[in-house]
């Protein structure tokens, strides 16, 4: 079972600038996602890497003042806004010839990303939620006994009924349900404020 002392969400911990470990985990969580977001919209991989660093620098500066206020998707939308601003600035810095290389597709993408109801925004949001839950799930695995984890995986990831899992693992149905409950509880604590799964 998870240690009660670790029940604060990663977002809450990372807002405390003195918690270097939490900040490092937040960075490791988000850098790959932001790179995937921006890479299709810049010319070179090195440009994408620079943009990721600019977004993370903005994030570290602004995070202590970020007010989630229980709004659904607040952090995700805030991160997307920062990323879009950096992407727009990236293109504005380039000369007209290079900017035109981005062409109508880039202009269309930037326009869509400014509209939270657009298909591109919804795609970014969905990718964000999948990436964050998957990565945080991996991060909590060692907090559980292998038997608990197996019962959880079989139900949640493989979609098997609790009765089948219980029979295969030689444990009670209730033990299988408790395993699912424990892991989901811990994941919700960890992801609070980052993904809306409450």
């Amino acid at each position, binding site marked *: 079972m998870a240690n009660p002392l670790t029940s604060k969400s990663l977002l809450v911990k990372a807002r405390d600038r003195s918690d270097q470990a939490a900040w490092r985990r937040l960075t490791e969580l988000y850098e790959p996602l932001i790179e995937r977001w921006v890479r*299709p919209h810049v010319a070179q991989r090195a440009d994408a890497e620079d943009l990721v660093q600019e977004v993370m620098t903005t994030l570290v500066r602004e995070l202590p003042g970020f007010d989630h206020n229980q709004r659904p998707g607040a952090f995700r939308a805030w991160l997307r806004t920062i990323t879009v601003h950096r992407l727009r600035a990236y293109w504005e810095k380039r000369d007209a010839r290079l900017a035109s290389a981005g062409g109508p597709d880039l202009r269309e993408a930037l326009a869509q990303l400014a509209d939270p109801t657009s298909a591109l925004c919804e795609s970014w949001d969905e990718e964000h939620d999948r990436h964050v*839950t998957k990565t945080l*799930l991996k991060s909590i695995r060692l907090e559980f006994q292998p038997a608990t984890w197996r019962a959880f995986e079989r139900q*949640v990831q493989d979609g098997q009924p609790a009765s089948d899992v219980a029979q295969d693992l030689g444990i009670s149905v*209730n033990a299988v349900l408790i395993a699912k*409950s424990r892991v989901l509880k811990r*994941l919700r604590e960890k992801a609070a404020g980052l993904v809306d799964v409450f």
Partner: protein
Amino acid sequence: MTPDQAKETATMTPSEHPDSETLGRFVLGRLDRKAMARVEGHLLDCSQCGQVAMQIPDDRLVTLLRVSTAGPATESAACNAASSP
């Protein structure tokens, strides 16, 4: 504390079954820690509640986990997009 929260955190005897809503919140990891421990303790000895809990439908978190861990399709699609000029 709301009436529902008060109900969830109230002392639960072995013969006193949690209602289906509380069981649902338990299975999906949505109760607070005290209520989680209380329902878990009850479930250790109550197969009747286990049968009810088995019928609880999945929520968005479970669906997200199932999709995101289903295979490399999502990441490879993203990688393909990332490697395009």
